[in-house]
């Protein structure tokens, strides 16, 4: 019962945050809603016993990725979203399409998989066990993602740095 209440409360916060993300027209509000979603998702993870994942969710997602978003929004001084009519397809086909798909999936889930219930802290993921998995069974993916991150860092630096010609002209000016 207690479990269900917490689940429902934070699930609701999640959904409200997600919907708020859609509704808000200023990106910084959307970003903050997303932080809220992430925070409540962390609570859901805790409910599922994935404490380490929850902590990492906060540190990486809320603490780093979203800060980066906020930083970029501030840097580019992004204003309120314009309401341009770019794509009728997205609005008239895409949204109904995804709604239908989502509803169908939810229905199937509720119909078919509703029998099993998950207790609180169903699968404790102590950091040691996870680390063992990560550095033994999943060592290769781990190393590959580390290379991916390295490449991403370099790519981001290259992309975001001003072209040399611009820098030079700035310096001369």
């Amino acid at each position, binding site marked *: 019962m207690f479990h269900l209440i917490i689940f429902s409360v934070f699930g609701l916060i999640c959904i409200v945050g997600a919907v708020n993300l859609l509704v808000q027209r200023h990106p910084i509000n959307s970003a903050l809603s997303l932080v809220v979603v992430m925070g409540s998702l962390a609570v859901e993870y805790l409910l599922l016993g994935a404490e380490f994942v929850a902590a990492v969710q906060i540190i990486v997602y809320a603490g780093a990725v979203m800060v980066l978003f906020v930083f970029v929004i501030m840097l580019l001084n992004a204003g309120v979203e314009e309401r341009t009519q*770019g*794509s*009728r*397809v*997205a*609005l008239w*086909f*895409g*949204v109904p*399409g*995804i709604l*239908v*798909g989502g509803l*169908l*999936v939810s229905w*199937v889930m509720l119909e078919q998989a509703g029998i099993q219930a998950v207790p609180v802290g169903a699968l404790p993921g102590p950091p040691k066990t996870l680390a063992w998995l990560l550095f033994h069974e999943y060592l290769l993916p781990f190393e590959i993602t580390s290379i991916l991150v390295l490449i991403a860092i370099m790519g981001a630096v290259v992309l975001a740095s001003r072209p040399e010609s611009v820098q030079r002209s700035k310096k001369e000016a």
Partner: protein
Amino acid sequence: MTSNLHLWLIPILPLIGASINGLLGKRFTRQVVSAIALSFCGAAFAMAVWISAQLSSLTLPHVETLAQWIRVSDFRADFAFNLDQLSLVMLLVVTGVGFLIHIYSIGYMWEEGGFYRFFAYLNLFMFFMLTLVLAANYLLMFIGWEGVGLASYLLIGFWFTKDSAASAGKKAFIVNRVGDFGFLIALFLMIKNFGSLDFSKVFASVASMPGNQDLLTSIGLLLMVGAAGKSAQIPLYVWLPDAMEGPTPVSALIHAATMVTAGVYMVSRSHVIFEHSTTALTVVAIIGTLTALFAATIGVCQTDIKKVLAYSTISQLGYMFMACGVAAFSAGIFHLMTHAFFKGLLFLAAGSVIHAVGGEQDMRRMGGLRNKIPVTFWTMTAATFAIAGFPPFAGFFSKDTILFKAANSPYGSWAYWAIGVFTAFLTSFYMFRLWFLTFFGQYRGEEPHGHGEHGHGGIHESPKVMLIPLVILAFLSIVGGWIGSERFDRFLAPTLHSSVTAVEAPSGESEGRAASELVFTSISVAAALCGFLLAWQLYHRRPELPQRIAHSVQGIYTTVLNKYYVDELYAAIFVKPLIDGSTKLLWHGIDRDIIDATLDSSAESAEHVSDTVRHMQSGNIRSYAGWISVGAAALVVYMVWTGGR
């Protein structure tokens, strides 16, 4: 195998030179380029000499296999090199004359652009020619065969910006392809019937199955087609006169001394096949004889100094084939060797003359050069006497042997001999005509101006680097025949060991033979003398006479002057139908109306379709995402519908 001679080095050395010059030569100075070309070519020559010095200690034929090449079930062809008396003679001639011409070229080409290119090609030619000569099987020989064709093409078209040179190169290449086609089919027949292309195995199979006349005849004839292409025999001789568009050293090396004799070499090499087919031999003899006569008549009327020499080359090659056709292979090779000396010399001297008068090639604008370029004159004189067949010059011995054999060989006939003698007369006539027109009388051209900027205007002797090869070749042209055909025949006997001569030798009555040989010799010398006298009469004493004669026999003269309209005939029979056919049927009919039309219409329909569909490509990410989500939804619906099965 007694010892390893590293025969493969001989062809590879010039290839290295060609690679260095071809790839890097552009940055080198002319001195470096010529040093590289000369040293690698000279190394090949030195090696050939070293090998001939070791000859007594070798067991011939000496075959060395460098590497495996093709192994398909029973058939095998390796990178194998074969050394025997025949290939040794060819080796010495090719490397020796080639080396001299390399030296000569340095002087001749010094002022030309693309110096490094020229020497790269020249070394490349040496590589292929040596491969051809040393090959131990027909396939490797074919590589050399094709390769010299390529080098010849490259060198004829050396001045590729000149239209006539470029088309002459193409002509040589294409006409050679016709011959190569015959050669190739002959190779296929050999593979099919003998299962091998090694000389030794092929000849062994031939010897063991003498009954199969038709097969041997067809192989022989096809080989002869190949030889006719490479050695400019009727009906494929037309490329050689045009090939004179190349630089003169090229004409000397490739189109006189070495490459064009490849056909003779190949026929001699395949003598076993020919000896087993009388028909093939007869065809070879007839073609040789006719070519000799035919080319000689054309040569009489030519005015371009190099063209005269070109037809003379064809004619002399005809002699060689005549010799082969009467199974006197060693005589053919003997003539090949002496011809390499004097014809190489003739071309080089002609080059020197052209060089002296500043690029002029028309003999009617020469004359009286005797005193101005004495060294060239004297060497040319030696060569002229040699080709005309005056004793004791080299040409006398070889030509005389051929004529004697033409009449006396079991396969010979008086007709060959008669035509041969007449051709000898013609040869003597047009060569002395050339000699008189060039060196005697008054100078008829303008002052050369080509060298004005180099500060030595006027007619002048060539530099030493060009004269030294001339002198050496002149020496060889004089003494080259003193070996004597008998000794030469004996030397080559192990290789060209023919059943015919083997049968004949014991039965020959040496007394009577010597007597009749003397008669034959006197007749041929007399023919040469007649030619000389006639030329002297017409072109030295009474230079106005030829004009009148030409007028009186206008029709014949024009025909001969236009080379019997053979080129025009070929154009009408082969070239034009080919061009018309490929234009109208292949290009317009098939390519444009069927293939292109199909593709064009499919492209057009694709364009129409995409023209309507491209409006979906709005460039807007969100509409793309919309389509994706619709697709995803459709997938979900499908999966739910089927229950995930």
